[in-house]
């Protein structure tokens, strides 16, 4: 029908015009060339079928209004990423550093989950309420020790269940990050007592943790641990199969996705 064009817009300027026409939503004349019609069709007004998510979006809007995220909210992933790196370092270091991971989970920054449906939403971290602010440095030092001086995570009483869940998840990550040998020892410590009881016994901790710690979460985006010591499983590695103790290269089970941006 329209033989005017043999191979589309002759130059960028013409393309720009076509695109600008399409984006203004002006209905093309029926006799417009096929490309213009195609662009107009692509930019056609909404079809009702495209708006089916409206109520859900509005519900999210209401929830966000009711429970506004703190200013820090736009970058939750960053926080988690840092946490993951630190936790990774910590887990590499020793059992003692397990604490770091745990207290990191209860992130210093006040980021109360905006919506009741917390778990899984902000990624694996599920930041509980911060009780220890900031003190999350993996200071344990590389001595394969049992944490002695650290505050007991279970005791510090997160308010209600979410915090507990977050703590348990943190403990799980710390636990899963350990080598087989370290695990057994770790479970005898007070630090992991809550975990053991939550799991219903030391022998069930592993299954419990594998179930509890999501193997991948949209937001959780620990990048490669920058540390050269990274030759250890990541804290969230769900597949830390108990094999060679302290196996240096157990990074295969890296379950998480790449950084969000």
């Amino acid at each position, binding site marked *: 029908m329209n033989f005017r064009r043999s191979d589309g817009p002759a130059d960028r300027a013409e393309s720009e015009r076509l695109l600008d026409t399409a984006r203004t939503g002006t209905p093309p004349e029926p006799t417009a060339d096929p490309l213009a019609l195609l662009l107009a069709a*692509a930019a056609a007004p909404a079809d009702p079928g495209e708006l089916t*998510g409206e109520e859900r979006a509005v519900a999210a809007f209401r929830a966000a209004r009711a429970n506004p995220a703190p200013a820090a909210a736009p970058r939750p992933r960053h926080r988690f990423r840092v946490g993951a790196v630190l936790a990774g370092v910590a887990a590499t270091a020793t059992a003692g550093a397990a604490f770091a991971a745990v207290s990191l989970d209860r992130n210093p920054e006040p980021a109360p989950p905006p919506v009741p449906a917390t778990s899984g939403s902000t990624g694996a971290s599920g930041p509980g309420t911060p009780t220890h602010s900031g003190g999350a440095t993996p200071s344990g030092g590389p001595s394969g020790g049992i944490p002695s001086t650290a505050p007991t995570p279970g005791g510090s009483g997160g308010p209600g269940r979410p915090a507990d869940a977050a703590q348990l998840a943190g403990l799980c990550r710390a636990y899963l990050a350990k080598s087989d040998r370290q695990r057994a020892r770790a479970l005898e410590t007070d630090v992991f007592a809550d975990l053991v009881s939550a799991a219903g016994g030391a022998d069930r901790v592993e299954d419990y943790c594998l179930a509890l710690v999501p193997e991948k979460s949209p937001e959780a985006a620990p990048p490669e641990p920058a540390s050269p010591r990274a030759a250890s499983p990541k804290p969230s590695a769900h597949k830390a199969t108990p094999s060679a103790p302290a196996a240096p290269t157990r990074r295969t089970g890296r379950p998480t996705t790449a950084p969000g941006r």
Partner: protein
Amino acid sequence: MTGELNEAVAAAQAGDEEAFRFLYRSLQPGLLRYLTALVGADAEDVASEAWLQISRDLPSFTGGEFRAWTVTIARNRAMDHLRRQRRRPALPVPVQALSELAGDADTAERAGETIGTDSALALIASLPPREAEAVLLRAVIGLDAETAGRVLGRRAGAVRTAAHRGLRRLAAMLQRTDADQSSDQAGGATPPRPRTGRGRQAPQAPKAEPADG
């Protein structure tokens, strides 16, 4: 239009739910179409995630082009989604859409006549990714080349070039199909706003609810 949008943004930031609905209705179709090119059949889910984030982060939007802000969020969610699937983000051509195009080919191949939204999008999605994104951001989302460049992290000139190449490729596709149809149809009877029924857009119940964070 943009002024209207900005007003609605301000009102929504102040808590006006109707304004938020307006934003949704204005922006969702474009986002969904763009996302369909990026992630195929998962576009609705990804769009849903994007709206959760938009709702949450709306207070922190400080001005600028709101369309660009939302489409950046949507794009990031799409990239996350693709990573999650361990697919290469560089391969956004939704195979489903293309095979549906074959089914929908009656429409697509009457190129000079009517082409439906779905078919048009499927054709665009079949372009090389960069070109497809450039065309969609410009024509469907409605950004100018500079803003589209910011969304894509590329220079405006690169976006113009990609869009231009994409259009030429599309024109060639159309011509091919047109020629196949031994084109002696009069173009006069064409409804100005062609749309097909969007059968495949069957509103599925959202299963992925999380992501408030």
